[in-house]
């Protein structure tokens, strides 16, 4: 593969390269965005399959289908696949596709590195899946029974699969950092002339803050798991009290990453909402400046409240008080964002296409999850709730609407732009309703289970918890299967055909922004000459 100036000019001016090289060697933000999204979709189904197994096992008290170690391994794997495999890559896929289109740039700032950050993901996924399957081989050691938080001392005792997981985390970290560098540089250096930071579309703002958070916290996680690796194999005692270390230190390192991580998952979806709601309310976003400010506040305070995940470890009273107050303070800027969305809809000429349905669903359910978060933030209350199913209910209420539904909204919103075909609106709406109803049947009962004392991450439970668990498992089946409909809609839209309408350049009547001025689907290279923003 030598590159001559000739072939360069050809690639530049004559559309897409063909064959497998187009995807493996890509330097095109749209193709790389597509790769990210397809990867995320695959991981969504893998992670979903593990969740279905977990709920199937919890359908009845007692141990039916799988053994306890495998159960714990599934719980670990489910979280990691969903967070690092599905949500983050999907958000990065949206960023890749939309940021250059939105800011009038010809591509991402560093296109080759962009491809590298994508292609590290399949390697990471390989290591992650290996960490799950290695114990099934002879001599493969024990299963990862720690949960995604991989706390020592348990994680020091797990067999070799933990090393695969640690390296998977390293790879994921490298990928996220490279992607974040690229996004920050693109946003700071590639905006069309005249587009000041405060004129930048909100989705770009949310990703700027997200990328910033990633660069700050992912290296800390990498450092933490590196220490874990050394404790496991090279005789250090970072997390071993006998040598003067402290297992709690790992928790601090993990949650210094982990709490900002929840905003990393949330913010890109908030960005999507900031486009979907104005489009379908046919009004500009209410309070652009306050949105930016609120987001910066969330990111800043979010960096210094991590220990609300560790109230029960025995911190000093001063420390828990500080972390409690800080955590509750975050709900102020988060609430502000929600109010901005509501104010945007106020007296708007609203229509309820699928992306808008998801947006409204998000506002209702995410707020609910935020409220249970405030309950958890209160130290004496959390002493009861901690490590119970209530926490599981909380984070699914914030993450599923706050992250996943936002991504669904984004996919429905931009799919006509990407493919040139309008998806089937009726099916979209059916998907929304099955999905949301399934979600609520699954996770609402878990609040009661948690309050009644059912612990999380345990395969068996007291018979008194049976009814709610049955309910939750049935909901999970509805919820899980509904995603097959999603898959069908996406494939149908990509393939197009006579049953679907073609999309205009401007897929939605109320849509505003540069991305709607290019074709649907856009040409292989767009904005080769930057537009002028007034």
């Amino acid at each position, binding site marked *: 593969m030598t590159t001559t100036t000739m072939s360069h000019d050809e690639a530049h001016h004559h559309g897409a390269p063909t064959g497998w090289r187009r995807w493996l060697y890509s330097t095109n933000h749209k193709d790389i965005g597509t790769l990210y999204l397809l990867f995320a979709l695959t991981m969504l189904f893998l992670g979903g399959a593990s969740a279905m197994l977990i709920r199937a096992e919890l359908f009845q008290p007692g141990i039916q289908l799988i053994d306890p170690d495998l159960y714990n391994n599934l719980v670990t794997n489910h979280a990691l696949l969903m967070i690092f495999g599905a949500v983050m890559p999907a958000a990065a896929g949206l960023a890749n596709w939309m940021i250059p289109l939105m800011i009038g740039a010809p591509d991402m700032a560093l296109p080759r*590195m962009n491809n590298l950050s994508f292609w590290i993901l399949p390697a990471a996924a390989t290591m992650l899946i290996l960490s799950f399957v290695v114990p099934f081989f002879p001599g493969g050691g024990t299963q990862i029974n720690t949960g995604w938080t991989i706390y020592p001392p348990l994680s020091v005792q797990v067999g070799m699969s933990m090393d695969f997981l640690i390296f998977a985390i390293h790879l994921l970290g490298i990928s996220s950092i490279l992607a974040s560098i690229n996004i920050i540089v693109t946003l700071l250096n590639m905006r069309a002339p005249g587009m000041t930071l405060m004129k930048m579309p909100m989705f770009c703002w949310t990703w700027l803050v997200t990328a910033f958070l990633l660069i700050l916290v992912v290296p800390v996680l990498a450092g933490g798991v590196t220490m874990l690796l050394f404790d496991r194999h090279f005789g250090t005692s970072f997390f071993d009290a006998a040598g*003067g270390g402290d297992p709690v230190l790992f928790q601090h390192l993990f949650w210094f990453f982990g709490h900002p991580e929840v905003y990393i998952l949330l913010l890109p979806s908030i960005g999507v909402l900031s486009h979907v709601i104005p489009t379908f309310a046919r009004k500009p976003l209410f309070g652009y400046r306050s949105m930016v400010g609120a987001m910066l506040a969330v990111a800043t305070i979010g960096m210094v409240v991590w220990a609300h995940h560790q109230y029960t470890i025995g911190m000093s009273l001063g420390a828990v008080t500080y972390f409690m107050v800080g955590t509750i303070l975050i709900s102020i800027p988060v609430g502000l964002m929600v109010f901005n969305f509501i104010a945007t809809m106020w007296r708007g000429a609203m229509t309820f296409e699928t992306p808008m349905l998801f947006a409204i669903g998000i506002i209702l359910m995410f707020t609910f999850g935020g409220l249970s978060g405030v309950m958890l933030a209160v130290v004496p209350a959390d002493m009861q709730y901690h490590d119970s199913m209530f926490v599981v209910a909380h984070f699914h209420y914030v993450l599923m609407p706050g992250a996943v539904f936002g991504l669904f909204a984004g996919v429905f919103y931009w799919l006509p732009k990407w493919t040139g075909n309008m998806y089937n609106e009726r099916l979209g709406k059916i998907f929304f309703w099955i999905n949301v109803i399934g979600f609520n049947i699954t996770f609402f009962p878990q609040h009661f289970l948690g309050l009644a004392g059912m612990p999380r991450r345990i395969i068996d439970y007291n018979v008194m918890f049976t009814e709610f668990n049955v309910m939750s498992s049935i909901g999970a089946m509805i919820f899980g299967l509904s995603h097959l409909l999603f898959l069908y809609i996406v494939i149908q839209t990509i393939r197009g055909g006579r049953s679907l309408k073609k999309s205009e350049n401007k897929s939605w009547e109320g849509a505003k922004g540069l991305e709607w001025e290019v074709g649907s689907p856009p040409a292989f290279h767009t904005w080769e000459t930057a537009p002028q923003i007034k």
Partner: protein
Amino acid sequence: MSAKEHSSHYFIPDPSPWPVIGMISLLSTLFGAALAMNGVSLGKFIVIAGLLLFAYLLFGWFRDVIAENLSDRYNKQVDRSFRMGMMWFIASEVFFFGAFFGSLYYIRNIALPWLGGEGYLGVTQEILYSQFQMAWPSAGPGELGGAFTPMGPWGIPALNTFLLLSSGATITWAHWGLKAENNQQLVRGLIATIALGLLFVVMQAYEYGHAYSELNLTLGSGVYGSTFYMLTGFHGFHVTMGAIMLIAILGRSMKKHFTAHNHFAFEAVAWYWHFVDVVWLGLFIFVYWL
């Protein structure tokens, strides 16, 4: 490409095989490492294959970039992208070291006093390790690794501080040479910087040997050994990487690749070198001295 296009169009590279090769090399390195750490003898060969591929990748990727740069296909905006990219990469490195410095802080100021019975939960000490008294340096209540002598600041470490600080000065001097189009000063400055850097690495290796053979200070010497070797070890690794990058830059300087206005690669390496320098100052103060 016409001159007009060059000035207004952002450079988008052709499709490139390097990222996928990067993926394969990283995967085989880490996959092999995971096997090797668990006693699978095949593992280390997979690691070596991965590392060789990685070296080939760096070589090939940078060769492409240099060729593009020399054929004048980058404009100012592209140059700015590279610069910003490097800065944010260094920012992420700062936080990587931050994790280790933070851990050192936590262990010395929170974990050890707690083990020593301080605070309202200090009673656990009576149950677990009633003999243990908080001290630093410490190998913990179990005295893991046996008695050891900690590393003092005023021998080799002080000398190493001097070496690295002077190398910071020599690379700045080289930069001045570059800006004044004085190639000889540039090359000499770089050679001096590389020599100082390599000397630093040699001294560090000697110090480790001394610590292992005479002070009984090992990676297993409780939490003091852990933090000492992890912090200085990762730093030493970064110095080594920096020196390799400097050598590459030296080669390019001798080929007169850089001009007073176009020398991003030089500056990127110089920033990296200064970063490594600053980390060392932190190490000297918090690991060796205090």
